C-alpha cells in the first residue's frame, strides 16, 4: 500500500459525503421554504377573499357603495352592457394582494 493512499481515500469520502449532505440540505431548505410560504400565501389569499366577501355583503345591504379598500383598484369604467334591450353602465374593479402572485378577484360595479 502506498503512503498517502488512505489520505486520498478519506478526502474522496469526505467530498462524496459533502455532496450528499448538500443535496439533502438543499431538499430540506426547499421543502421548509415551501411549507412556510404556503402558510403565508394561504393567509394572504384568504384575507383578500374576506375583503371581497365583506364588500359584496355591504353592497347587498346598501347599493350606494364602491370598493374603497386599498387592495381594490378600478380596472375599467364607462362600459355599457345590453341585456335584451335593457342597457346599463358598469365598471370593473380588481382586488389584488401583493403577497401572492396571481391572486386577484374581479367585480362588476353599476355606474350611474
Amino acid at each position, binding site marked *: 500500500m502506498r503512503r498517502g493512499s488512505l489520505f486520498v481515500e478519506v478526502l474522496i469520502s469526505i467530498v462524496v459525503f459533502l455532496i450528499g449532505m448538500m443535496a439533502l440540505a438543499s431538499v430540506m431548505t426547499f421543502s421548509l421554504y415551501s411549507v412556510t410560504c404556503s402558510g403565508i400565501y394561504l393567509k394572504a389569499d384568504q384575507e383578500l377573499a374576506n375583503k371581497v366577501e365583506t364588500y359584496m355583503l355591504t353592497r347587498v345591504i346598501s*347599493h350606494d357603495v364602491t370598493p374603497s379598500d386599498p387592495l381594490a383598484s378600478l380596472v375599467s369604467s364607462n362600459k355599457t352592457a345590453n*341585456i335584451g334591450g*335593457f342597457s*346599463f353602465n358598469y365598471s370593473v374593479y380588481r382586488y389584488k394582494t401583493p403577497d401572492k402572485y396571481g391572486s386577484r378577484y374581479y367585480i362588476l360595479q353599476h355606474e350611474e
Partner: protein
Amino acid sequence: MICKAKVRICKRPGAALLITVLVAFLMLSVLTMVVFNIAMNISHVERWQTAHYEKTRLVYLARSAVNAVIEAASDDIASLGASSSTPINKQGTIPITDAGAVSLDIVISGDASPYLIFRAKAYNASDQSVTVTAKYDTDTKKIIKWSGGL
C-alpha cells in the same frame, strides 16, 4: 498488547466513525424524505386550491354582475317591461376582457308580480362555469333569495 481486547476495532480503526456517519446520514435522509413528502403534499393542495380559486373568482364576478344588473334595474323597474300579463325573458352576454377570457351570460326573467329572477352565468376559457341566481322582490326592492355559486 493494548489492542488485545479490541482486535476488531484496531484492525479497522475508522469503523466506528464510519458507522456513526452512515447512521447519521441515513437518519438525515429519512428526515429529508419526510419533509419533502410534506412539501409535495402541500404543493398538491395548492394546485387544488388554485383550481378552486378560479371558480371562486367566477362566483364573485357572477354575484357582482347580478348585483349590478339589479342596481341598474331597480332605478326604473318599469323599463324592463315586465308585468303580470307579459312576463319577460331578456338575455345578454357581457365579455369581461379585464379578467382574462371570462364572459357573463345574464338572464332577466319573470313577470314582476312581484318577483323577477336575475341569473348570471360566468365562464372562462377552461370551461369552468358558475351560475348565480337572485330572486328580486319588485315591491320591497330587495333581493330575497340567492342561490347557486360554489
